């Protein structure tokens, strides 16, 4: 399962964090700092997978943002790697050419989209169309 999801920019600011495992606020600060250090110092030619405590990190960079998934050791790396991509495609289609600022000003919607794609640390639905229809319906609700 996914232990947590992080979206951080190059400067280390966390734009989105979702934890599927319980951590205190202090622990989260430490984790986010360490993850930022790890993903920003790895060479581009290296693998997108790194051991982290008793888990592993799957990370991917899009422009100035680093998407990191922390998963169990026996999880399938490549499929989670592509899950990140699917999530980015969802955001891109919802916001229309998404950029970091969209995520800042619409953080409430980003969390809503996240909860339609991932839940309880697992992938919930994989059809982009299905997810987006649902999200658009929810967005219109008063």
């Amino acid at each position: 399962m996914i232990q947590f999801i992080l979206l951080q920019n190059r400067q280390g600011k966390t734009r989105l964090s979702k934890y599927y495992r319980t951590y205190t606020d202090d622990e989260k600060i430490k984790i986010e700092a360490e993850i930022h250090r790890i993903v920003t110092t790895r060479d581009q030619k290296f693998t997108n997978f790194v051991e982290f405590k008793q888990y592993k990190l799957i990370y991917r960079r899009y422009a100035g943002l680093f998407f990191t998934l922390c998963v169990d050791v026996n999880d399938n790396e490549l499929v989670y790697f592509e899950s990140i991509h699917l999530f980015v495609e969802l955001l891109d289609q919802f916001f229309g050419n998404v950029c970091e600022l969209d995520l800042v000003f619409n953080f409430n919607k980003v969390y809503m989209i996240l909860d339609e794609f991932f839940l309880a640390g697992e992938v919930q639905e994989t059809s982009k169309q299905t997810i987006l229809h649902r999200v658009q319906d929810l967005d219109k609700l008063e």
Partner: protein
Amino acid sequence: MRGLTVFISDLRNCSSKEQEEKRVEKEMAHIRSKFTSDSNMNGYNRKKYVWKILYMYMLGYEVDFGHMEAVNLLSSQKYSEKSVGYAWCALMLREGDELLRLIINSIRVDLISRNDNAVCLALNSICNVGGKEFAETLSNDVLKLLTHNITKTYVRKKAALTALRLFRKSNDTLPAEQWADRILALLDEKNIGVLTSVTSLVLGVLAVDSAGWEAAAPKAARTLTRLVLNKDYSNDYLYYGIPTPWLQIKLLKVLQHFPPPEEHALKLRVSEVLQRIVSGTEVTKNVNKNNATHAVLFEAINLSIHLGQSSETLPQCINLLGRFISIREANIRYLGLDTMARLSQEQPHTLDDLKKHQSTILFSLKDPDISIRRRALDLVYAMCDTATVKETVSELLNYLDNADDHIKEELVLKIAILSERFASDNSWYVDVVLQLVRSAGDQVADEVWYRIVQIVTNQGEDLQRYAAQGVWTILNAEVLPHKNLVKVAGYVLGEFGHTIAESPGSSPSEQITLLHKHFRNADPDVRALLLNTYVKIAHTYAEVAQMVSEVMQQHSAAMDQEVQQRAAEYISLSAPSLASIKGTVLEMMPHFTERESIVSK
């Protein structure tokens, strides 16, 4: 919400951290006062203020108010207000929080509501913060939603994952006798989204105990046939041309929880699916498509490995892995090494086939990427057997000199385990461990050199002499030996120094002199050990008694308590009245009882 957008802009336009802090404080004070003064605040404002609170919290500011207002929003009939209440719970609360007791009733109301959107919010919430208490109170309602035929698909998907969350918090939520049939029946669904979520639930249960859930295997195989062979899926589940790699992989994982199928039809089905995946995966230019097909391929290889001898695709998989470990693309190389290690461990009969890749694997030990180095080390370790152990250990020892600290400790442990497990002769094993202590003293855990002591003690005089000679030679050669080396040498000479005492150059007094050279700068724990050594040697060889007695005198008032105590006691032990006891106390250590090697643990 204009108010929120303007506020976010304001904060972003602050030119310094102090300015931002001031603006935040101002806003918090404003909201606080509104919350206390305006008892008839409308939903829109309450919603707006709570979103602002959440934004400030996300920036890292501490927020200690607004709880009641947020909880209040949960019971609103308007979706936009209810959803911010739930968003607040998700961000501000965590499992076990006291406040959850207040909310659990609100959640239950929404869970059994006729309004599907409210139901979804409640399910999300249980997934975000639900713990054991939630499992006890709400699992029945969740399971009803999951298994009822009128439940909408978008609710059913969430119900499946909520059930999984509750199961993980309390394994008694889903006893097989009660629920296996109903939940596994859901695996006959057509809707792939529902299948994906339900399969995750089933996998979660299988991971704990598969007893009672055996019907999952044929159903998984049937769905795989649908997807892989029959192209029976709707196009919105195509990901770069691949039918839902996510579900394929989950189904392949389900099959790995059961022993190889015996029933003929099932066996055939699984075999056909694997055959199609393993032979049909090509390398394509499109990165995402390539990743997706290979994600499925690697899982199929994992299943083939699990099926072992009964798998017709295993030989092909072995070939593929052989190719993958030399590919330039790092991710594939990583997975190749990782999967090959799994293969070595689960199907040791394939080791002979894999040995031809030894040089590629050893080369990967030096890869600039630490992730690859770790996989390579694991693989080298997994592939090692009696025939290859000497070559493997020799390579690893070479590698040790240049390895970085992250990997050194693991490397030392693996070398120690391999050399003990596969050693065909004990004197080689002694050489290896002494070399370890010599080159990587810091990373050699105490358990490693305790082990060598145990083995040498139990094996008899020949090995004891070999060990004594070994430590003597090394100690003479090192100008600044590592403290662990001094400890090992001290212990070995204390017990077995007599085996080399007759040889020129290693008389008892020369032994003590050399050891004492390193005593001066040694840590207290090393000194304490050396005192034991001295007293044992002195007991057997009267010629050094005087020298040793002086050392004991010197340190009978040492600062370190252990050192002081030992020195003082050994002085007393030399008194004539204790002569009979002395012999017993200073006797050679008896054999150690054979238990599981502490190093392996």
